[in-house]
């Protein structure tokens, strides 16, 4: 059994070295296709982390009725922190609120010159868990806080939240559509290439069957070949895209990114690299299977 496997692998390797044109063509196609997929994955992942970065601005600000005593404050903070959706609660005094407002006004800050520094109410700022940073989660928290009482008003950037959510949806759908299309395209192109390599060797396949080769005996080296080519193509794709990635990031792209307010740019994490390899193997084997079914009618 084990000896047979080794024998089949030997035959597969022999095949590949015997017709380098076909082998190189397949590996090249797998590499380029997976490279496109890898790039796409890098972009999607980074956009995702960017939106996660943005989503930190989804906060609930709860304005307090009047200036509370220290005991009241800690009670309110504790009850807010007890909510399952909440990560962190920060108490903002009137003065802090005033300073923050001044900062936000920027160039217009001189407008506040004549005003008292305590005309803004004190507030609690609630940061939420990531999965609650949307309209539903926010309104849930507000509902809970309302029940405890002691707050005059709540603010959570309602219109901003709507926009943010639809942008997220947009990215999600566009990513899924494009990703699906690219995955299909990669499978199609690789299967097509393998079909052509099998086509170029169809006489060989015919001879094998005429000399008594069973379907499995003839096909299995091709499947192994497909898997090997998939792995090699996957490794090459990851290396190539890493090269391109560092080459262009080193060339000043990163500073650009950071300047435009995007968080850190990361390469594909290891787990996703494994996924790319797996995709390579899958595409290689599937492509071989599909093509062999067309040409080996044994």
């Amino acid at each position, binding site marked *: 059994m084990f000896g*047979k496997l080794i*024998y089949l692998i030997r035959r597969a390797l022999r*095949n590949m070295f*015997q*017709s380098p044109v076909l082998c190189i063509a397949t590996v090249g196609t797998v590499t380029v296709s997976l490279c496109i997929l890898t790039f796409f994955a890098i972009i999607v992942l980074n956009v995702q982390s960017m939106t996660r970065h943005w989503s930190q601005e989804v906060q609930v600000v709860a304005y307090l009725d009047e200036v509370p005593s220290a005991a009241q404050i800690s009670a309110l903070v504790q009850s807010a922190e007890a909510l399952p959706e909440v990560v962190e609660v920060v108490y903002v005094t009137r003065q802090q609120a005033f300073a923050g407002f001044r900062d936000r006004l920027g160039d217009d800050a001189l407008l506040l010159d004549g005003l008292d520094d305590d005309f803004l109410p004190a507030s609690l700022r609630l940061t939420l868990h990531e999965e609650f940073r949307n309209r539903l989660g926010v309104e849930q928290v507000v509902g809970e806080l309302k029940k405890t009482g002691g707050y005059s008003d709540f603010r959570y950037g309602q219109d901003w939240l709507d926009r943010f959510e639809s942008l997220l949806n947009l990215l999600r759908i566009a990513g899924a559509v494009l990703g699906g299309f690219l995955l299909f395209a990669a499978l199609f192109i690789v299967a097509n290439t393998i079909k052509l390599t099998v086509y170029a*060797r169809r*006489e*060989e396949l*015919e*001879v*094998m*069957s*005429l*000399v*008594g*080769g*069973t*379907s499995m*005996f003839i096909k299995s080296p091709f499947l192994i070949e497909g898997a090997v080519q998939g792995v090699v193509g996957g490794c090459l794709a990851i290396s190539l895209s890493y090269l391109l990635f560092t080459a262009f990031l080193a060339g000043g792209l990163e500073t650009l990114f950071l300047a435009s307010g995007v968080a850190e740019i990361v390469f594909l994490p290891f787990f996703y690299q494994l996924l790319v390899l797996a995709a390579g193997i899958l595409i290689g084997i599937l492509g071989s299977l599909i093509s062999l079914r067309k040409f080996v*009618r*044994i």
Partner: protein
Amino acid sequence: MIQLYNICKSYSKDGTALEDVNLKIPKGDFVYITGPSGAGKSTLLKLLYVAERPTRGQILINGQNVTRMSVAKIPFLRRQLGIVFQDFKLINSRTIFENVAFPLEVRGRKRFEVGKKVYQVLKNVGLEHKLTKFPLQLSGGEQQRVAIARALVMEPLVLLADEPTGNLDLEVTLEIMDLFKGANARGTTVLLATHDREMMRRFPRRQICLENGRLTEDWIP
């Protein structure tokens, strides 16, 4: 051993390659199949190794009805046959050694045994020094001998040879005939499609003559 009942084969509507052929070949027989070009000799052999299916009629080989054999079983039938194809059908991307070894590998023989057998049979056809060459690096006659070696490497139950000496000179032809007769003596049934009258004159055996797809003569010396 081999029985054909009312075999008809037509590739297209406008003509038949074989028409109503009835034939019995006992085990261990040595039969020449002759007839003019396009008579249906190769077609008859193709039906026997199930590269084609008859349009009508039944074929029995070694008791098995080949006509309705399932696709999955065909390889196991072919492993009992040694076939020399008219156009050789060597695998061009493999060496001579690998080509001749293929029928043994298919049957899962040990590497050691394979090497010994292949060397022996290549020596029998006079090509032991071309082991590592590829088919396209051989002359026509050498390719034909490789095809013969591949058919003989297994001591087949039945040997189907389609014009096996068309590219060979008389001396080599005689050596090859010795190999065929040797296999026959060891129990292999031999069917040999040929045009070579010299060969049939020197080794008179049963002759089946096809003409336009019909069996016109069955001569036993």
